[in-house]
């Protein structure tokens, strides 16, 4: 997975935080360069049912709220995009994360990667979501009928 940054220089990368509904088509379309043939898009969305990893307890979520340390989150997202260009032969990357209140089923995050070869797009997209979930200063609160809980991720 060698980089070839000279040829596949980022031209349409973007990282965004938004309180508006995310349309995944429009995210995917913005990373498309005319010489590429494929984008791979990860679409994360608010689950109705969550299972506590420690206790195994299953709860039904009414809605979610996402909060970010916004300037730091955007910087981390930019760092991830730069690191993805170093590691993978990709053309463009778009990352959009939703903030605020989300209804069940609404998209929380979209990551689209365009690349001359599919394989690099898949690998980069998978790497980016893993790293974003590990380092992006963004937090999720699950709101239930009888309470709410800020979810704690894996520590980095």
């Amino acid at each position, binding site marked *: 997975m060698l980089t070839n940054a000279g040829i596949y220089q980022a031209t349409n990368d973007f990282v965004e935080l938004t309180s508006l509904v995310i349309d995944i088509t429009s995210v995917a379309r913005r990373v498309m360069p005319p010489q590429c043939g494929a984008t791979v898009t990860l679409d994360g969305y608010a689950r109705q049912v969550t299972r506590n990893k420690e206790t195994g307890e299953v709860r039904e979520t009414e809605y979610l709220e996402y909060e970010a340390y916004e300037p730091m989150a955007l910087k981390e997202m930019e760092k991830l995009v730069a690191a993805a260009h170093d590691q993978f032969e990709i053309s463009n990357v778009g990352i959009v994360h939703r903030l605020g209140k989300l209804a069940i089923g609404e998209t929380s995050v979209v990551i689209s990667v365009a690349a001359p070869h599919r394989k690099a797009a898949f690998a980069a997209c998978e790497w980016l979501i893993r790293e974003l979930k590990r380092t*992006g*200063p963004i937090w*999720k609160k699950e709101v239930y009928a009888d309470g709410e809980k*800020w979810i*704690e991720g894996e*520590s980095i």
Partner: protein
Amino acid sequence: MVAQILLFGATAAIAGSRSIEIEIGTETTANLILEKVSERFPGMSSLKLNLSINQQYATGDEIICDNDELAIFTAVSGG
């Protein structure tokens, strides 16, 4: 000096505020700040806390300077 610390998510909920101020000496490290904040808010002591300095993750030994932008938050859960 007085350090202002931004809080997010669970840390803000426990403190009941989006930022707190703590009195620190010179040569205060990132780890010492985390300890002080956990003492003041016992609800945070069971959490995996991160400190960021100027929007970068601290590793622990950094010395806090005047005007550093500090934030304390739990392990992230976005995505």
